[in-house]
């Protein structure tokens, strides 16, 4: 069982507010109708009026939201799968057949829902609002030769009320037809819907697919890149699948801005489109150099084999997410990225090619590889130091057995906000910690000094200016001969992530 994000915050707010308003409107409305006595007639009338206005305001907000976010498209009725959906509710559901349609953030409604909700939106709700307003302000119309009798107004309002009540009953009942009886309601509350692994996979892929379409439109100028809300939500799903934690919107935005490369390849393996981020990652300057060339052009031999395997997977209708790939950049340097791709199709469903994202992980891979190398060469290689200390993305440090800094790189200084190495070398590492943090860190340091390599612990730092930062830290011992004389490691900044979590 997996969980997929389906409902945005505003949608959840809107749904539950609307639910409350409709139920209270029904409760007070039927009292005004004379069915029972709960609030008292007068209170019922005034509350009903206030509720009506609250409801109208909510409708205006929601229609505005639907319009600007493009969510209105979700209400466009479609006969595709309509029969299947009806058949499912009539027969399939009793055979435990799978749902014929899947819920994704871009296609929240099955065709039956689309039709029903559209009916509510364009027929029932307008009739209720219009007849309700006439009802409320009847005395102002009655002598104006416009309206002569309250009766038809009241009857329309009552018919609408019964239809809405019927809708609510069926609506609530149908929420139990999800993965588990309460899945749909939980989804409406938390936004995340529980699905079977299979369904989640498909939902995720569809989300990815739509994100691709949006990106394609943005790049080709046919659509607007402003659809960032949709893009990001899809992206959130995708990167979650990739194992990248993206709770922070800022971090995510940075990822998108910085190093998410987009590409599209036709079924012959020829680049059709790439974005600027892609070009940057490949250190190309001219798009024309790339478009038209084959996907295997800039690869190492293993790389070629791997990439063709992935391309073929997608061209056969599969989806790849978060595959690590090596690239050879224009200047001959080697980089690493993860690639997520899916096929794109023509109207008839024929696969025309594939498209996807690449996210740069070069520094991460390099640091990992160097560490691996250091470990395999029995901790005696200097490569790790050389590679990591030169890195612009990770901070390097070396501390002696006694706990005093021996070496840091520029990135480290930057993260700790020091001006030069002189300010820190020779100082004890407890300098920038609180007592608790120091004790925690010292435990780790003691383990490293006994020969362990500790990867990716998270720790807090106090920068020179007093601000607080967070980073992942990886520590490994430094040997001289067979003796451990200190420890070294790299830190990767996670401040954004940590702050977002808090």
């Amino acid at each position, binding site marked *: 069982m997996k969980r997929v994000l389906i409902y945005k*915050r505003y949608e*959840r*707010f809107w749904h*539950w*507010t609307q639910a*409350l*308003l409709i139920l*209270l409107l029904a409760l007070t409305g039927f009292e*005004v*109708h*004379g069915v029972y*006595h709960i609030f*008292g*007639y*007068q209170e019922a*009338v*005034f*509350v009903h*009026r*206030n*509720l009506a*206005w*609250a409801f109208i305001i909510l409708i205006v907000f929601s229609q505005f939201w639907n319009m600007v976010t493009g969510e209105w498209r979700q209400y466009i009725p479609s006969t595709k799968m309509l029969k299947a959906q009806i058949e499912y*509710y009539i027969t399939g*559901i*009793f*055979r*435990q057949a799978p749902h014929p349609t899947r819920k994704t953030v871009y296609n929240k409604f099955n065709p039956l829902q689309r039709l029903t909700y559209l009916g509510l939106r364009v027929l029932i709700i307008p009739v209720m609002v219009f007849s309700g307003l006439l*009802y409320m302000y009847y*005395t102002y119309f*009655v*002598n104006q*030769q416009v309206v*002569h*009798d*309250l*009766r038809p107004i*009241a*009857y329309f309002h*009552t*018919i609408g*009320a*019964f*239809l809405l*009540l*019927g809708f609510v*009953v*069926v609506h609530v*009942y149908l929420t*139990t*037809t999800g993965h588990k009886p309460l899945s749909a309601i939980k989804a409406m*509350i*938390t*936004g995340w819907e529980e699905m079977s692994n299979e369904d989640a996979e498909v939902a995720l892929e569809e989300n990815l697919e739509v994100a691709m379409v949006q990106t394609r439109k943005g790049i080709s100028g046919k659509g607007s890149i402003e659809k960032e809300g949709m893009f990001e939500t899809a992206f959130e799903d995708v990167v979650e699948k990739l194992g990248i934690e993206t709770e922070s919107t800022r971090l995510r935005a940075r990822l998108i801005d910085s190093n998410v490369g987009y590409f599209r390849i036709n079924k012959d393996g020829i680049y059709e489109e790439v974005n600027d981020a892609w070009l940057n990652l490949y250190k190309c300057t001219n798009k024309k150099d790339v478009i038209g060339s084959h996907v295997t052009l800039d690869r190492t031999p293993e790389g070629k084999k791997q990439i063709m395997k992935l391309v073929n997977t997608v061209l056969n209708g599969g989806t790849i997410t978060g595959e690590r790939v090596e690239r050879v950049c224009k200047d001959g340097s080697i980089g690493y990225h993860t690639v997520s791709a899916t096929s794109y199709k023509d109207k008839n469903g024929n696969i025309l090619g594939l498209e996807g994202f690449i996210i740069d992980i070069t520094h991460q891979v390099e640091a990992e590889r160097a560490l691996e190398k250091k470990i395999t060469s029995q901790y005696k290689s200097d490569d790790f130091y050389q590679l990591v200390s030169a890195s612009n993305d990770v901070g390097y440090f070396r501390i002696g057995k006694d706990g005093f800094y021996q070496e840091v790189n520029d990135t480290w200084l930057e993260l700790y906000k020091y001006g030069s190495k002189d300010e820190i070398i020779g100082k004890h590492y407890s300098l920038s910690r609180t007592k608790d943090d120091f004790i925690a860190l010292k435990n780790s340091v003691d383990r490293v000094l006994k020969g362990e390599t500790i990867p990716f612990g998270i720790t807090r730092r106090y920068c020179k200016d007093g601000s607080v930062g967070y980073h992942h830290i990886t520590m490994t011992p430094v040997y001289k001969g067979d003796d451990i004389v200190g420890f070294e490691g790299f830190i990767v900044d996670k401040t954004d992530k940590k702050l977002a979590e808090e």
Partner: protein
Amino acid sequence: MKKFIEFIFIIIVPWIIILWIVFTFTRDKDRNYYPTKDIVIKHDTVPVDHSKFAVLQKKFETPQDVTKTCLTCHNGRGKEFIRTPHWLWKQKDTIPGRGIFDLGKRDLLNDFCIGVNSNENLCSMCHAGYGYSNKNFDFHNQNNIDCLVCHDNTGTYHKSNPCLGSNNPKAGLPALGTNLTNVAQHVGETHKNNCGSCHFTGGGGNNVKHGDLELGLLQCTRDFDVHMASKGENAKNLRCEDCHKTENHNITGHLYSVASSANNRVTCEECHTDRPHKSKLLNNHFKIIACQTCHIPVYAKGFHTKIIWDWSTATKMDKNGKPIFDKDLPGNTYAYDGKTYHNVQLQYDSRHGTAVFQKDVKPEYVWFNGTANHHLLHDKIADTTHPLILNPLFGSYHDNVEPGDPRHPSKIWPVKVMRGKQPYDPVNMLLIQPKLASRIKGSGALWADYNWEASCETGMKYIGLPYSGHYAFLKTESMWLLNHEVSPSGKALQCADCHNTNNSRLKNLTGFYLPGRDHSSVLDISGVIFIILILLGVIIHGTLRIVSNKKNH
């Protein structure tokens, strides 16, 4: 934790905010609200002391002497007064759709003591004049004006009631032993008891006729009448003329049992404006509901009023052959015209027949546009199967929706409906004016001879209309719009008194849709069946799912 906070902020907080707003916010404030406390009542005072006037320093032998003396100073007032309905007992008035008629007590029949003609000797004890004993009374003789009955401030001046004994003067003369000099020296503004001396006791006793005008108004609290209250907290103690503004002896106010057009009326909004409520919704109700409808929830608060008068049982004698006078009958229910009246008092009198009295009566409600029709003396009776309405009030819901005359939009009004059976001529199809009041046996008077035939014949002859020699009794109704005994706001009708399915006060007013009272049973039943079918469908579907689920596992 993060999700829980999100849940609180996205769902629970908006719910709380909305519930709070929805249950506390009142948008229903009328900006033009005119509070009652802003109303100012100004009283004129009489700056002179009549007891010092030389012309009044003498012993007056006859009441006409007093009037003559009054007119020596108040010259012109007599001329003024003899044009008023209080003197003429009629006025020119328009019946919409029929024309202009002389309408008034003199020429209209009612279902109390039926009519003035041939009974003037008794009836004129409420005439503002002296000697109106028959149709030949000189309505131009100013000396016969009774100034004192309205302007006596001593409280000792009463008109003689000829019923109290044969030696009592008739035709509106003062009671025996009245000190005319003392009264004449203490005249002044008209007070409640002056007006009340006739208007509170019309029909033969306290509150018999109007239902909302009774002696209790002279000494009452706000619960009884917010305007005239003279006892208890916040008593305004208004006089009649504070509302019934009077100029040149023309007293405003219109009683639709003797009038028909919408002229010269006294309305609540003259003081209260048409926006007396803080609530806009209530002020909007004024477009179709008269103030009186909500603010007079009951009438006859102090004393029983007569609601049914069955003349057909009159003339029955007791076992000794003697007439029965004012005998209370046992029982407190009375069945009449298919309806049973509860908590009533029954009375029998050989002169009058059966009378039904009720106290704390809930009004009936009608559409009324300010004009009325009248069954005139010579009008033929068209239908004897239904009660004849003597003064049908014009108005309907549609008169409000599509007002032919925008000045007369119909509103819902509270009304006392007086019901009765009174004699009519089944051949000529005319209502009968019987001769009732006389002590002389053989005069034809019902109360002397106990003979309907003689009574009808004498009465009809008196008014110059044909009588076939046959009489029967016809069910009649008359409409008495309620205007007095206004209750404090806290005791006014509440929404649910009318907006109510089972027991709406307006249940007899049809032809329009009243929220809370009306619904289409077809629509409601269809709606309920629709919901039941849906529930059944859901239950069956759900059960099948559970069953099939178990099977498949």
